[in-house]
């Protein structure tokens, strides 16, 4: 097989190997002759290795591996041995560079192998969406087994393996989804609850110990009185208010229920940053109070709340705020099981526009899953927080009146929660599984019908056999005979379907068709999993069944429809998460000391990780040019990021396109917080990481990870204070220099962005701690470097201009990645032709993203097995 393949390779690109061999005789060969031949040459062959006559073909794996082990020895510093003649750094690093580059290239070709797409297991994203399509219930992707991170994307069948863990996990999660989908019970009553900060809730200032809020509340009554007195906030009648007042106030809501606060689940609400000031440090972190609530408070003990859509309405406003500051209400949703802040999974931020005297009403909707089986989400909780963006400094004015005067505050005067709201009953999910039962249908016939149609739909192109269906029916019947209800008994057979190979593999029939075209139905499936990570919809299947999808015009317009459909966001997410490795952000701790409230920090981090995905998605939907990834006149941000970047906020919750003001540095990928954060340790920037990112993602030249066992440079730091001086040490060691002379000069272009993506013109001195930095100051940021072609730049603007010159290389690399994702394999020599065609078409069409994706989906390669 390998022999055959290398023949193929040689025929296809006759020039390639001779070029490699030519460079070999210019670089590696003389090196071997000077430094290796004495021990590994004609006279001596230490360790049975002779290098002078080892051919440098790199056409088969054996040869590649042979040279790889030579590179390993050189990289690890084992060779040349200590007592032998050693090369100069410059000579050594160019040899390492050449050898590494040649090996990477040839490995890429050898891995490609020219094979078509391998059958693959559904990845996490596919599985979750496919189950959603069948049951209307979403299994959180994180609860599914982790897919391995290979050299290609998570669409590559060769990486997606199967284990008993997968099997059991699929079955139990599927059961849970089915249970959630079926609703034979009566429509749940819509419950409404009004939280009133005075009478309905505890109102207590938090107690503090070393600046940290203590959760235990003591001396409730006296604290409350003292608190109200101190702040002179119009809550004088607080203690005299009774529950009835709340009921009266909520007016029409006859079934409104005033909550008895479950102990430990609910704290307090409103008022002032006072609580976050400590005696030693009179600075607040801007966060005001928090309301932690569990919706279980809405129902009586013992009964359970129903899954569904819940509506939140919060009436609030700010007071005494510094005009340069901003006030927010943040709603954090999460899992109540652990009852701690760390379980909040996401925050939605709404900027407050109203003062407390004329408060505004904020309305948000959440889908809440109340079931608590097998490790899925349990009781949901909400944190409602009010906070200022900036730290609050204690001013002399505030210190007056016993230190409690004129504090900025945010007040929440009313919170109403209602739900579950259903558009229809039984919900769509139920009807997906249980269609209306015809009056005279026996149970067996009815259930057989259900199981059969569920299996048929689940199995996509491969219909289930009678034997299989019979076996499922037998399992159902057995459970019925044991006394289980119809809806309980059907969980097992349906969940088996969702763990069967015809569902979990995207299988394509072995076709005798000489050209190897897959069937139209299979094409529909491929398209849908490529662009939606989901099964095809009815329209696409209909076109396939009526033989119309093969019409190039129909195909192209369908691809366009798929791209414009909202489901393609799943493609944007899946692709960008892997292409740019944005999940790395979660690994970064951002110890920004007191700069922002912890909530805000968490939110900024989360939004930063999403920004590149929304950016890609917007470019794809609007069919903009890929050049926007290098520099753009717009960003796609949410309220949190807009605020963080100093842009005008889009207002509504979620991401939207915002036009950048002139001279804003935020355009393109390199202006986005995600990369500044990945390229930092939270305090200092890491120009090397940033340089490596630019080199591999923008310039399109991936570099291998640092070879193992190279000692980290740990030189004496005296006299070396800036990042640039430190990094210059890389060139002192050939093993480092071979890559870093390409990487490091690119890292300086982004130095104006601090470790946490704030614009800066000075940098802190490297060897100092955060505290020392404050005290001792900093140096002007170094922003000049050079590109791989030798062109020099100074500052971000010039850097971006230079990067734009690599537009073509960038596009080529991105197209390769898109093809790799679409075909589910590593790109090898067999795909070179396709990539070439795609790239030249893209160039002629201003590198428009949606057109490129569409070209890939319509290509012949995408349609053959």
């Amino acid at each position: 097989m390998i022999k055959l393949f290398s023949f193929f390779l040689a025929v296809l690109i006759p020039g390639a190997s001779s070029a490699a061999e030519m460079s070999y005789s210019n670089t590696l060969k003389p090196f071997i002759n000077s430094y290796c031949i004495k021990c590994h040459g004609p006279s001596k062959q230490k360790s049975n290795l002779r290098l002078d006559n080892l051919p440098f073909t790199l056409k088969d794996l054996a040869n590649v591996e042979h040279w790889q082990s030579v590179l390993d020895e050189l990289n690890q510093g084992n060779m040349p041995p200590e007592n032998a003649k050693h090369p100069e750094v410059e000579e050594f690093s160019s040899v390492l560079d050449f050898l590494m580059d040649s090996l990477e290239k040839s490995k890429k070709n050898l891995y490609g192998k020219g094979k078509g797409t391998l059958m693959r297991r559904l990845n996490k994203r596919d599985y979750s969406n496919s189950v959603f399509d069948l049951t209307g219930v979403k299994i959180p992707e994180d609860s599914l087994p982790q897919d391995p991170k290979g050299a290609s994307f998570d669409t590559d069948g060769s990486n997606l393996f199967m284990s008993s863990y997968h099997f059991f996990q699929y079955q139990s999660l599927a059961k849970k989804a089915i249970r959630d989908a079926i609703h034979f019970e009566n429509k749940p009553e819509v419950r409404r609850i009004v939280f009133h900060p005075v009478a309905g809730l505890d109102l207590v200032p938090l107690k503090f110990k070393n600046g940290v809020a203590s959760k235990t509340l003591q001396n409730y009554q006296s604290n409350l009185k003292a608190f109200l007195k101190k702040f002179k906030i119009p809550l004088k009648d607080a203690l005299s208010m009774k529950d009835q007042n709340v009921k009266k106030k909520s007016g029409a809501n006859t079934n409104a229920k005033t909550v008895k606060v479950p102990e430990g689940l609910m704290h307090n609400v409103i008022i002032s940053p006072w609580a976050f000031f400590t005696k030693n440090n009179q600075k607040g972190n801007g966060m005001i109070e928090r309301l932690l609530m569990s919706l279980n408070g809405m129902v009586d003990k013992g009964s359970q709340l129903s899954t569904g859509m819940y509506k939140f309405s919060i009436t609030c406003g700010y007071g005494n705020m510094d005009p340069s500051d901003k006030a927010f209400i943040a709603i954090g949703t999460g899992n109540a099981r652990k009852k701690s802040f760390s379980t909040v999974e996401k925050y939605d931020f709404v900027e407050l526009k109203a003062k407390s005297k004329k408060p505004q009403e904020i309305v948000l909707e959440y889908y809440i899953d109340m079931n608590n089986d097998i490790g899925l989400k349990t009781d949901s909780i909400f944190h409602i927080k009010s906070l200022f963006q900036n730290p609050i400094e204690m001013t002399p004015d505030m210190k007056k009146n016993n230190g409690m005067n004129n504090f900025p505050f945010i007040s929440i005067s009313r919170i109403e929660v209602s739900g579950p709201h259903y558009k229809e009953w039984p919900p769509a999910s139920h009807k997906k599984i249980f269609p209306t039962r015809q009056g005279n249908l026996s149970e067996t016939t009815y259930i057989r019908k259900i199981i059969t149609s569920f299996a048929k739909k689940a199995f996509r192109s491969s219909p289930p056999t009678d034997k299989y269906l019979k076996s499922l029916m037998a399992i159902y019947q057995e459970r019925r005979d044991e006394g289980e209800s119809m809806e309980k008994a059907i969980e097992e057979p349906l969940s088996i379907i969702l763990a069967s190979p015809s569902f979990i593999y995207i299988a394509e029939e072995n076709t005798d068709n000489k050209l190897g075209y897959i069937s139209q139905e299979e094409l529909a499936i491929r398209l849908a999993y490529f662009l939606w990570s989901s099964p095809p919809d009815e329209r696409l299947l209909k076109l396939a069944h009526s033989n119309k999808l093969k019409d190039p015009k129909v195909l192209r317009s369908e691809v366009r429809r798929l791209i414009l459909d909202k489901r393609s966001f799943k493609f944007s997410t899946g692709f960008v998460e892997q292409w740019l490795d944005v999940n790395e952000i979660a690994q970064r701790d951002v110890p920004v000391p007191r700069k922002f409230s912890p909530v805000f920090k968490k939110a900024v981090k989360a939004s930063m990780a999403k920004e590149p995905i929304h950016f890609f998605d917007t470019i794809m939907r609007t069919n903009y040019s890929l050049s926007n990834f290098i520099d753009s006149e717009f960003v796609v941000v949410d309220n949190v990021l807009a605020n963080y970047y100093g842009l005008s906020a889009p207002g509504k919750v979620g991401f939207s396109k915002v036009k950048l003001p002139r001279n804003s540095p935020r355009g393109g990928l390199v202006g986005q917080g995600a990369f500044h954060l990945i390229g930092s340790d939270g305090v200092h920037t890491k120009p090397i990481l940033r340089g490596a990112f630019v080199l591999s993602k923008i310039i399109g030249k991936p570099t291998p990870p640092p070879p193992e066992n190279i000692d980290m440079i740990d030189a004496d730091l005296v006299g070396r204070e800036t990042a640039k001086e430190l990094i210059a040490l890389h060139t002192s060691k050939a093993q480092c220099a071979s890559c870093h002379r390409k990487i490091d000069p690119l890292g300086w272009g982004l130095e104006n962005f601090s470790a946490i993506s704030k614009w800066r013109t000075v940098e802190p001195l490297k060897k100092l701690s955060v505290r020392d930095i404050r005290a001792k100051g900093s140096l002007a940021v170094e922003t000049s470097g050079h590109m791989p072609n030798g062109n020099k730049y100074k500052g971000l603007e010039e850097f971006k201009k230079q990067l734009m010159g690599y537009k073509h290389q960038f596009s080529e690399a991105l197209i390769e990645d898109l093809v790799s994702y679409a075909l589910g394999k590593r790109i090898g020599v067999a795909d070179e032709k396709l990539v070439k065609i795609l790239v030249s078409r893209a160039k002629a069409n201003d590198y428009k993203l949606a057109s490129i994706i569409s070209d890939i989906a319509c290509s012949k390669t995408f349609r053959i097995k």
Partner: protein
Amino acid sequence: MGNTLDRRRFLQGVGALLTLPLFEASASTKKSSKPPVRMINLGWAYGVTGYGKWFPETGSGFDYKVPECLASMEKHKKDFTYFSNISNPFTAGGHNTCTNLYTCANLKRTTGRSFHNSISSDQLAAKHLGAHTRFDSIVLGKRGNGTGPCLSLSWDESARPIQGMNDPIQLYNQMFGDGSVSLAERKALLRKKRSVLDTVYLDSKNLKKKISRADSVKLDEYFEMVRKIEKDFEKEGEWLKIAKPKTDLKKPVNGLRGEKNIKAMYDLIMAGMIADSSRCFSYLIPIYSMLKEMGVEGSSHAISHHSKNNMALVADSIKINTKNAELLSRFIDNLKSYKESDGSSLFDNCLVTYSSGTRIAHSVRDLPCILTGNGGGKIKHQGYIELENGSNRMSNLFLTTLQTVGVKTDSFSDSNGVIKELLV
């Protein structure tokens, strides 16, 4: 069900082992005088502290100063061996943490696959020793929580990671039962589980007929999985007849995290050894939540990249390594204090390897590695020993431990001999 026989034939056809040759024997050896030797593989991600804080800088044999991080091990100094210059020579990159720590696989050079591993030493041992016990092996620890890209310490014969358990209650119930289910119910449950397997097997056979040969190879993974589960069920069926053992250990309380969780797991490993639930254990120790408990701000990853430029990170690294060693020392204390039927201690009858897949940052040479336990009296501890280049492979250590626990093999992965110094 009709297809059950058919599937059994399929299982036998591919040479799967369905019989349990040692099962009958096990009941009788149970009370015999010589306790079994158990293998315990412990690992954690992200290495240790440099600058002489974990590795002794000088000395040899028992003449060395126990470094700062391991101060709690001082009292056991005579009872463990501290390796210097031990590595997995074919680790790919410094980013794989513990992926091939106990498999010693060559991660990068496998044709046509971007990732490949091989069987780990505990799983190989389990194949030989598993027939004596209810569980072939017990795999603990969960991915995430500071484990980096490592999926598990334990990899099965087809090089699939085995998902570990990280919930002490679940582990307790598995080993000692929660007492709420009757035998008849458990039998019925097993029969039902089998009919599920029978059903998916039907679909696999049907699918296999339709797809190409290349895809069929992919589908074989599914068959392999069915086969593995079937074998487990087979064993479960046999063991149903025997009541789960009792233990003196109290059932762990709900929601243990960080240090308490790790302690509970160590205690359960010991209880499992006493009850002879299994003889092969692996535990990927989760360090992240423990870090947080100790008030350490940074991530495990950042801490592993400590250097003298950043003494704060070095201090954090020392903290976590010290705590980790204290827990090991406590485990050794407990093992020593339990007397087996023949008067020897549990410590005498086990072999515990304690190691991490990286040293510092990306360095994968000279791994942190400690061996403790007397291996049924077959092991002679050496204090601090430096291994010679050429024979300094992790696989040689594992070959030694495998042979010591009674596995008849003369090689493991890339081994080229046992570590003779360790043998009595």
